[in-house]
């Protein structure tokens, strides 16, 4: 049977539906009486908390940077961590904007892509964390300096930099040189566009679960349709 023929039947069935489908108007009044709130309020609050946490870290790191601007290794360590927190802060701000602009009035491709982007927030964090792994060596570096500056006696033994006789700096430098290009490559590879690559799909599935994997596959389908790759 041809679809055009079925279309005719489908349209003629509308008359029957008009009679057999009834609307419970009292329930509509109940809906109208309900307070209109956004479904995404809890998610919005989560992202705002993330922003506050990241801005707090940024302020502390800027303070540390200014205090140690002349001590090159410490300044570099602070800058490396600042880069991580600023990136995650921007990521959270983007999500807040996405939530604020969420509107069911938009076309299906735009609206559904925005919803998927919200669902896949966790994978962005996983990607950023891997991208910034080499910079995490900066945590003990900064912590050691803070312990020294504040003369915290109970933690005086923590001075791993002094104990390492300079090899700590070599380790940090090597990690940056080797791992940063790897991190950038990984960040660029793990995207919905590469969902057909087995390792990308496996990584997403293991780090973020089946729901995010399905959401990204759906995003790929939407984007392919939108950009005429069908």
């Amino acid at each position, binding site marked *: 049977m041809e679809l055009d023929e079925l*279309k005719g*039947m489908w349209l003629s069935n509308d008359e029957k539906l008009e009679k057999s489908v009834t609307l*419970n*108007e*009292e329930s*509509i009044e109940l809906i109208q009486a309900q307070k209109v709130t956004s479904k995404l309020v809890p998610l919005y609050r989560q992202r705002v908390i993330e922003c506050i946490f990241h801005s707090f870290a940024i302020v502390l790191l800027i303070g540390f940077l200014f205090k140690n601007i002349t001590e090159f290794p410490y300044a570099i360590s602070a800058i490396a961590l600042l880069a991580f927190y600023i990136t995650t802060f921007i990521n959270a701000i983007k999500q807040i904007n996405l939530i604020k602009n969420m509107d069911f009035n938009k076309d299906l491709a735009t609206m559904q892509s925005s919803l998927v982007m919200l669902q896949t927030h966790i994978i962005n964090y996983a990607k950023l964390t891997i991208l910034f792994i080499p910079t995490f060596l900066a945590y003990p570096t900064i912590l050691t300096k803070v312990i020294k500056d504040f003369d915290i006696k109970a933690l005086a033994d923590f001075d791993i930099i002094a104990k390492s006789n300079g090899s700590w700096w070599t380790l940090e430098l090597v990690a940056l040189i080797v791992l940063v290009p790897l991190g950038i490559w990984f960040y660029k590879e793990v995207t919905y566009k590469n969902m057909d690559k087995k390792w990308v799909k496996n990584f997403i599935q293991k780090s973020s679960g089946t729901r995010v994997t399905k959401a990204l596959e759906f995003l790929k*389908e939407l984007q392919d349709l939108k950009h005429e790759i069908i």
Partner: protein
Amino acid sequence: MMRKDQEFTRLIRENKRIIYKICNAYCSSKDDRDDLAQEIIYNLWKSFSSFNPELKFSTWMYRIALNVAISFYRREKKFKNHDPISEGLIVFEETSAGKNEVENNIRLLQDFINELKEIDKAIILLYLDNKSHREIAEITGFTETNVATKINRIKDKLRTNFSNK
């Protein structure tokens, strides 16, 4: 002059078939259909103040209802923010008369639509409701060319399904 809530109820009454068809296409159980109908009407009411009366209500309604249905289908129910209503919003009264061939074909078509991917369901529902390729493109956000290609592919799929029935 009609109040906003009365105007909304009138427009929903006039277009209740759209909600019924979408709920049928995206949900297999009655409970899910009731939940989805409520979700759709809630979102339509929430967005009603932004509706431009110069535009066609059914196009606006399709856009919101399909967006809600696809999100619902993709298990986006965790942020439910309104009270559930115990009674069904859209009630279908089945006639006791025996089914004729046309009704059987429509039932079969509905079953085939249920098996399609969520975006394909949206496109075919719009096509069957006599929306032009341009309107479908406006509602879905895809190009007219892509809409036409998609419709042809779905047609082929349905043709095969009907010939295999």
